[in-house]
């Protein structure tokens, strides 16, 4: 594709991507002169000018609850909107009353794995959640909370409940909560503190600790203001009419937000990979690969663009998807199915079943696949460290506290541990490009560490540190082996030949054809690659 056919990424973070679409050629009309009654009709095309993607990790697991960390991405959208507003707003000056913003339309996607019906509902519910936040329409979130099916399909598994309330309360700053009165562990206490706090009082809430509809409304709006912020940390929102493509002409959101179910995957694993992952007991790898598909895409259109609900092809989020099939490619099912090799829309342009969605997204920088890097953490004796606290630093980014994966450490007597121990002790890094080197600091986990343990602080002391080389120089096999050896911790030396010999000694029991000679003979190189890439080192005594 020509360079002008691709848009450019304006910004990206762990949870999202923002980009501008390719600039359309100057508008050109081809006309035939007339001597009779002929006309030449010119119609403006509906073409997005920018895009913003929210990744799966910004939603609670398998849910449409928006997590607080989305505030890291929202400034990207605020900036994108400002850049395409006409006339461009000048910082420090009040907005021009005649300004026109680029209207948005929100598309939710589900991944192809798992329960069909639930996925369909979830894609629409997530689109509704993002829409509701952008438009500050608490009633949309209330509908999701109650699963009443007014704005999106109800889904019994997507139960907002107490958990959602607590997530939201937990993200509010101290100045929105009245002082505690002692019963800190009571979840109702947090609700009471919000009700008694400034926003709660303005809304006239009784401080009874009960998160009823009035409290929820105030809480939803306070939370939205907390997470939907610009680069200065100030809340921003879109006008429910002017800010969206359908202009709220349809009460159920047609044109403003919709769910595409699993019809438009951005990434399709190869059949072989799919089978491999499906066969694993622990679905972490499979889920990680597929979660790229569970995205919410916000498209921005040229200021002044409009569509009428009647002619907008996408069904309402609450309607489900039979209406989508009319817009499928004739080979739509084939497009969205796993094939012989892995396919990504960005490269092959053939993974979407919906022709209409494809026309909007062709050339979009936002339909990119994030690279996933998995690093496994061990101690000096090559024992994997599930739930190890760690600090991950990529070049040019803030250090990020994390905890390695793990299966249930202490199952109740008589029950089996959850998860697959061979998938323990992994950390995952997501980025648009595979990072070259990642600095990882980590420690052995404490005995009581498990799922839900708090994250370490960047200032904590850590036992181990390593600059893990992620981008292995495969073009040079010798360098590649040495790099892998380094990653495996064979750096004691004093000389390189000693490191190689140390590896050979450790692994001869497993790889009989290794000669312990301190050289990178083919058998050794093979063994190094197998052990490193399989994350499966030999335990040392």
């Amino acid at each position, binding site marked *: 594709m020509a360079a002008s056919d691709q848009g450019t990424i304006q910004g990206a973070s762990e949870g999202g991507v923002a980009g501008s679409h390719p600039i359309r*050629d*100057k*508008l050109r009309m*081809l*006309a035939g*002169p007339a001597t009779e009654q002929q006309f*030449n009709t010119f119609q403006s095309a509906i073409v997005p000018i920018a895009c913003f993607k929210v990744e799966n990790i910004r939603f609670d697991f398998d849910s449409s609850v928006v997590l607080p960390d989305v505030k890291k991405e929202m400034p990207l959208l605020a900036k994108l909107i400002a850049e395409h507003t006409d006339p461009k707003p000048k910082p420090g000056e009040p907005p021009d009353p005649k300004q026109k913003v680029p209207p948005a339309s929100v598309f939710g996607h589900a991944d192809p794995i798992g329960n069909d019906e639930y996925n369909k509902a979830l894609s629409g519910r997530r689109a509704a959640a993002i829409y509701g936040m952008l438009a500050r329409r608490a009633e949309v979130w209330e509908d999701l909370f109650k699963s009443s099916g007014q704005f999106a399909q109800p889904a019994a598994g997507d139960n907002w409940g107490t958990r959602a309330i607590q997530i939201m309360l937990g993200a509010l700053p101290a100045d929105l909560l009245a002082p505690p009165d002692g019963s800190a562990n009571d979840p109702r206490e947090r609700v009471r503190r919000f009700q008694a706090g400034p926003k709660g009082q303005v809304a006239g809430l009784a401080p009874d600790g009960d998160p009823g509809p009035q409290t929820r409304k105030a809480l939803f709006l306070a939370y939205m203001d907390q997470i939907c912020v610009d680069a200065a940390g100030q809340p921003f929102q879109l006008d429910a009419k002017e800010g969206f493509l359908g202009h709220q002409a349809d009460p159920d959101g047609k044109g403003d937000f919709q769910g595409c179910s699993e019809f438009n995957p951005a990434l399709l694993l190869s059949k072989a990979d799919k089978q491999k992952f499906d066969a694993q007991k622990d679905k972490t790898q499979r889920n990680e690969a597929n979660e790229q598909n569970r995205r919410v895409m916000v498209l921005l259109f040229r200021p*002044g663009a409009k569509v009428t609900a009647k002619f907008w092809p996408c069904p309402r989020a609450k309607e489900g998807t039979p209406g989508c099939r009319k817009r499928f*490619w*004739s080979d739509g099912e084939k497009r969205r199915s796993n094939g012989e090799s892995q396919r990504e829309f960005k490269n092959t342009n053939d993974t979407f079943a919906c022709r209409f969605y494809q026309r909007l997204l062709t050339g979009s920088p936002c339909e990119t696949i994030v690279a996933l890097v998995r690093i496994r953490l061990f101690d000096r004796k090559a024992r994997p460290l599930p739930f190890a606290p760690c600090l991950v630093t990529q070049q040019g980014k803030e250090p990020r506290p994390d905890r390695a994966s793990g299966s249930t450490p202490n199952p109740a007597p008589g029950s089996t541990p959850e998860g697959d121990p061979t998938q323990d002790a992994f950390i995952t890094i997501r980025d648009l490009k595979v990072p070259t080197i990642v600095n990882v600091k980590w420690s052995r986990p404490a005995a009581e560490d498990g799922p839900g343990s708090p994250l370490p602080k960047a200032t904590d002391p850590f036992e181990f540190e390593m600059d893990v080389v992620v981008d292995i120089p495969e073009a040079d096999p010798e360098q590649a082996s040495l790099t892998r050896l380094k990653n495996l911790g064979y750096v004691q030396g004093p000389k390189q030949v000693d490191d190689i010999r140390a590896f050979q000694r450790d692994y001869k029991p497993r790889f009989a054809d290794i000669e312990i000679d301190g050289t990178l003979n083919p058998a050794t190189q093979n063994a190094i690659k197998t052990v490193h890439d399989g994350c499966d080192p030999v335990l040392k005594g």
Partner: protein
Amino acid sequence: MAIRYLVKQGDYLTKIAHEHGFSDFLTLWDDPANAELRQKRKSPNVLFPGDVVAIPDSEPKRETGSTEQRHRFVAKGKPLKLRLEVEDAFRDPLRNAPCELEVEGERKDVKRSDAQGRLEVGIPPNTQRGRLVFREVDTVFKDFVLDIQIGSMDPVVEIAGQSKRLVNLGYLKKLAADRDDPEFLSALQEFQIDHDLVVDGRCGRVTQAQLEKVHGS
């Protein structure tokens, strides 16, 4: 002696006639030597590169009359017009919209589109270029310069003609090379479903007819 003129892109019969000294394109169009052309091309101003136009001898019109009398001959010919309709969104014409229209650099008198979003101006017989801008409007067209290439439209039976109409109607971004071009197929199928036709990705007679109808020519 009649000459055979080979049509190139941008040619239309009124222009060809004018360039060969004929004031009325009908003289060429109705000439028996162009019977095959008439069969092939329904619209004299929508020709296709490669078409051949027979140009009769440009003889002065013979009229019996005394050489003493003077006879005035008024240049005949249907006036040539540029007729446009601009739509802001699907089936939503840009009505009564203030605009500026230039043809070959000359500003035309039309001030705004009519109640059906249409504009009509007379143009000289060899016009090629025009420019249209909508200023104080509340739509995507605000301040957008529309370059108009006159004489560029091709017959709807040709893929170029189908492509060009799809471009004008907002379905296609660039002209397609052939009927297997995926962008062309996509545009055609969208057009078909938007107009309740059978979505088969083939521009047969029914689709062509609908294209002409919706486009206006």
